[in-house]
């Protein structure tokens, strides 16, 4: 079963706010100068910010903010966030892979930015029926 697509807009302001809240002040997430110096096209989102947004999608599908029992991803491609008002957009979809006998739902999740996958092996297990 395919779940409804959810989209998340990401701007530079979001990255600054996430840096402050998470304590991850790596300058590749706010300084174009630093990001380009290490070979990136520009400032990129924290992988953990992308993971957090996808986590929001998962709890929304699960219908409960505390439903996640297992959640893992591989970061495959950076999310480049331009310095403008629009920023970029992360599109999240999922399919229900399995419903276990003890009522857990396992999801295979896909997250893309500009049509490219930014995560692979993104899997979540929630303790609710979907």
């Amino acid at each position: 079963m395919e779940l409804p697509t959810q989209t998340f807009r990401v701007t530079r302001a979001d990255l600054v706010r996430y840096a402050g809240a998470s304590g991850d002040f790596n300058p590749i997430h706010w300084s174009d100068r630093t990001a380009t110096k290490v070979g990136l096209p520009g400032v990129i989102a924290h992988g953990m910010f992308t993971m957090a947004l996808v986590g929001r999608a998962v709890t929304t599908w699960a219908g409960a903010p505390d439903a996640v029992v297992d959640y893992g991803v591989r970061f495959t491609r950076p999310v480049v966030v331009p310095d403008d008002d629009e920023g970029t957009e992360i599109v999240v979809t999922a399919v229900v892979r399995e419903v276990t006998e003890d009522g857990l739902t396992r999801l295979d999740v896909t997250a893309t930015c500009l049509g490219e996958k930014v995560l692979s092996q993104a899997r979540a297990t929630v303790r609710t029926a979907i």
Partner: protein
Amino acid sequence: MSLDHSFVGRSYPPTAPYQVGREKIREFATAIGATDPAYHDPEAARSLGHSDVVAPPTFPMVLTMAASRQLIEDPALGIDYTRVVHGDQRFAYTRPVVAGDELVCVNTVEDITSRGGHEFLTTRTDVRTTAGEQVVAVWSKLVVRGEA
């Protein structure tokens, strides 16, 4: 510089207790745009059976990233942090983190491999209460890029 493979299986001493604050959870939830009342309102969280506001699934990173300094700053392990890229991340929950938790992190080096000139370091961090209750296990795989 390369990683010392003899560190596989080694655990570090528990970190100093981290007090999970209600406002920190609200701040984190706001930063990721998570508006569910259980992340913000203690009454809403209590109606779900929790003692205080619930943390979103990736919140433990706030603690575990700070705790990982134990490994990053261990010269014997040999991580060149300027070459590190975040590879994988996973959380396996025993129960959600809630405000008021007093949590310690125990870091274990689970695996070190080399492939294609890069090194891969998998760490497991057990996040427990100061009373010893397991809350969440957190795995991070770091890629230490080889010198080009």
